[in-house]
């Protein structure tokens, strides 16, 4: 492809055809200040911060929208440009309340940084002329209209990235205000609290409640990781300070979600109020007593060794890491020859292996079968809604209460699956998203689509794909187990179906992060670290193996899920790999489809 050659500040730059002046400048590491522009959003050209002088153009032109042409001569910091930018800043700073020292975002604010850059030392226009409301009706973050500069990043994020179309602008001119729906409080609107707007806001207009006033960005550490909520496997950045996770942000470079997160991934993990298990516990004379790791593991090893393989049972959560699931299989299934293994979550049957989440954007017809991504895998529902905005037809084969029904072209019952398949057969790029709610007949019917369609299973647990690939799902029977090892992990579970069947005398070991009815019944409890406290790898529903990293130290004596199993194996005299890297490689090898 022929490149476009232009000159920016006297420097020769070549850019791919179709790129804007701003993109060309970024390629050459020339900094042009922006406010309304955001790399993840469509350029708007509204704030007029990125104005540049282009030879032959009468007026200054916004770099974010102006297309490059061959031989263009651009000046990004000429005196005329600087005067214009200062003027825009003068207007913006005086428009609403931008009194930085009282703002939560001071130090991290893009508007403030530009104020410093262009030497704004006084107000040209009278400020604080009008008071604007603060909307605190949302649980996780609030909107302070006084700090808003109407750049509309939030509006665009809401429609372009999340396809939720909650945010908009009401009134016009100086009366313009960001609003939700038809001007209702944010908390009562169609907002789904995904927080994408919060992440793109350049000023302190959108403020996270939990991390507000907890420190400037420079005082925090950012650790990239993978979200542990569902099988999509979104990239997250954990923002920590002094051993506490302040907030979670979407990782813009992540291959799956490209910066977008949902409420369950961004906020809910930080608002978890369940009580942690922080020390190993062993039941003595009917009562759980705190003990040390050695004693606890010794008790487990003794209990397991004293039971025949046929009488041993293993139950695992699909929220555990690749390494833990691999060790679980290795230790119990291969070394101890246990055959009574099972998973705590329902797993969708594998229809086909071909397909990735990225195919959703390219598809012209989308079948959602037996899954409700709006509740369970919200980021996948964003992808679907985006595709619907682009003109794809959505067919929901599920109950009428499925969250995607309002966006659907057709809502069918599971027994009408053949109608959906017929329509999909006529399309060019059909996409099938299915979950554990799919029936056997429906799965068979969908197989007819064959190679033409992309199939992606939407599972509940983050690591369901790995668990299924490791064969941990072969018809578990709790009543047959005399000794039972349950890897509950972080899962929120009352465990009643299991507990009802477990024999009174059975020896139950629970590896868990939180207290639950299962830990009440346990004979040994092994305290496990949670998502922010452990490293490891996770396999998303596409089979993509991604790293999860540790941002803070585990609470109390808790240990990572794989570390506990590794110690237990050693206690039982089995050497099953030592370092995390070795384990990750072994696990990845075991998970990879043959």
């Amino acid at each position, binding site marked *: 492809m022929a490149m476009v050659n232009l000159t920016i500040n006297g420097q020769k730059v070549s850019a791919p055809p179709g790129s804007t002046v701003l993109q060309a400048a970024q390629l050459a590491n020339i900094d042009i200040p922006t406010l309304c522009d955001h790399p993840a959003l469509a350029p708007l050209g509204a704030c007029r911060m990125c104005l540049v002088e282009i030879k032959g153009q009468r007026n200054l032109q916004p770099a974010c929208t102006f297309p490059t042409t061959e031989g263009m001569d651009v000046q990004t910091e000429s005196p005329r440009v600087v005067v214009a930018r200062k003027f825009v800043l003068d207007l913006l700073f005086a*428009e609403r309340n931008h009194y930085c020292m009282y703002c939560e975002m001071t130090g991290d604010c893009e508007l403030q940084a530009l104020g410093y850059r262009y030497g704004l030392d006084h107000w040209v226009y009278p400020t604080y002329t009008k008071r604007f409301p603060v909307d605190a009706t949302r649980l996780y973050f609030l909107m302070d209209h006084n700090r808003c500069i109407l750049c509309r990043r939030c509006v665009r994020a809401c429609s372009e990235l999340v396809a939720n179309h909650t945010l*908009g602008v009401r009134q016009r001119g100086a009366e313009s205000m960001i609003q939700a729906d038809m001007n209702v409080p944010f908390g009562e609107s169609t907002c789904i609290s995904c927080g994408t707007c919060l992440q793109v806001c350049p000023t302190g207009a959108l403020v996270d409640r939990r991390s507000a006033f907890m420190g400037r960005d420079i005082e925090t550490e950012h650790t990239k990781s993978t979200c542990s909520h569902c099988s999509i496997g979104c990239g997250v950045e954990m923002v920590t300070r002094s051993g506490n996770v302040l907030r979670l942000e979407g990782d813009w470079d992540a291959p799956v979600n490209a910066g977008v997160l949902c409420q369950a991934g961004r906020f809910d993990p930080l608002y978890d109020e369940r009580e942690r298990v922080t020390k190993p516990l062993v039941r003595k004379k009917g009562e759980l007593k705190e003990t040390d790791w050695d004693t606890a593991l010794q008790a487990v090893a003794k209990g397991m060794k004293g039971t025949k393989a046929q009488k041993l049972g293993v139950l695992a959560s699909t929220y555990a890491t690749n390494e833990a699931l691999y060790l679980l299989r290795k230790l119990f299934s291969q070394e101890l020859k246990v055959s009574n293994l099972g998973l705590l979550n329902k797993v969708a049957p594998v229809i086909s292996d071909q397909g990735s989440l990225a195919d959703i954007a390219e598809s012209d017809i989308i079948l959602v079968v037996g899954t409700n991504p709006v509740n369970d895998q919200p980021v996948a529902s964003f992808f679907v809604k985006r595709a619907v905005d682009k003109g794809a037809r959505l067919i929901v084969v599920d109950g009428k209460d499925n969250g995607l029904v309002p966006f659907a072209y057709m809502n069918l019952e599971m027994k009408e699956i053949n109608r959906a398949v017929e329509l999909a057969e006529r399309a060019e790029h059909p996409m099938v998203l299915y979950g554990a709610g799919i029936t056997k007949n429906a799965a068979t019917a969908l197989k007819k689509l064959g190679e033409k369609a992309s199939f992606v299973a939407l599972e509940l647990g983050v690591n369901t794909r790995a668990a299924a690939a490791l064969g941990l799902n072969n018809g578990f029977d709790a009543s047959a187990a005399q000794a039972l090892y349950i890897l509950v992990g972080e899962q929120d579970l009352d465990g009643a179906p299991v507990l009802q069947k477990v024999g009174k005398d059975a020896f139950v070991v629970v590896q868990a992060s939180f207290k639950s009815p299962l830990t009440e019944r346990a004979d040994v409890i092994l305290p496990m670290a949670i998502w922010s406290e452990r490293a490891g790898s996770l396999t998303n529903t596409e089979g993509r193996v991604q790293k999860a990293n540790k941002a803070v130290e585990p609470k109390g004596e808790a240990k990572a899920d794989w570390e506990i199993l590794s110690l237990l194996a050693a206690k039982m005299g089995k050497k099953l790999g030592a370092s995390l890297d070795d384990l990750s490689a072994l696990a990845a090898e075991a998970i990879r489809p043959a």
Partner: protein
Amino acid sequence: MFEKVLTRNFGLPRSESIGVYIANGGYQALPKALHECDPEQLIEMVTASGLRGRGGAGFPAGRKWGFMPKGSDIEKYVCVNTDEGEPGTFKDRELVEKDPHQIIEGVIIASYAVGAHRAFVYIRGEFFLGVKRWIKAIDGAYAKGFLGKNILGSGFSLDLSVHRGAGAYICGEETALIESLEGKRGEPRKKPPYPASVGLWGKPTLVHNVETLANIPHIINRGAEWYSSIGTPKSTGPKIFCISGHVRNRGIFELPLGVPLREIIYEHAGGMTFDKKLKAVIPGGASTPMLTPDQVDTPMAFETLEEAGTMLGTGAIVVMNEDTCMVDVARRLMRFFAHESCGRCTPCRTGTQRMLNILERLEAGQGKAEDIETLERTARKIQGLTFCPMGDAAINPVLSGLKLFRDEYEYHVTHKRCPV
């Protein structure tokens, strides 16, 4: 005496009806255009006539038609801009209310020339009678077979419908009109791409003012040569001038372009009320710079007004006598622009508001000497910085007021009151 072209039927009873229009030579250009001309010839004819857009910018209509991509496989649209909102302008409303068929004939010919089969009327929500007349006229045209499938057996089909706007000045700007027509918030789009390549629903779109389209049948009927003989070489054809303010006969006057301003004010509009002295004239609507009494002999044409430092705009002449406070004039106009700013770009959204604040302060006798400087600096800085041309329009009343009547601004500061 100039022979009226566009307003010739205005005096007739029931001039809006299709019967009266046909009885007075209406719908004669249509068969001529459809049966005798091919689209290329029509574009050539309109180009030769020298017709320039009457919506304010004065862009040559023939060139605009020529920009539309050729080929019958491309879906194209035509939009009729009836979103007349410039303060002082009331010509489009009269045209729609008194002779809508003239415009419809123009729309059909224009659509045929550019190859569009769907046209939309975008009308200002407040034009209640205009909406009724549009709908009735369109119904009439359908009944006679001028609209719909296979018009007059030519094989050309066109559908026309009316869309009411929600009353925003900015929707008179063609890209904002298109956004609004699509059901979105009325805000201008970035250019390029221009509507001729990417317009309504992403398809090539021709947007024309009502008055521009009303000229088309006459050009077809009487030829480009006849048309270009009216007016000046660079501004051809008849123009409807709207005159308001301190004159005896306020209203619309159809005159050839290039008529001296003096003739309009003192002959057609009957001179100044109470024979007061003329102080200033806004020649083309609120967004055009003012003229002083010594410029009153300027011919009203695109090029001559441009030489005089202003614009023909929509031809809305606002006449002000010696009793007019120029600060108040600027304040009133700025209130309009601040109110009508769409709020998208910073300089227009907050800049107009700042200028309005200063003007209000000055008018209230609370102004300070530096206020005038701030006002001028703000206006000059807004120039060329805004997303659409509205920002440049909004500063004109202030800049031309300061240029011509700076002493009056200073008087407001020193004496805390109006000099008049």
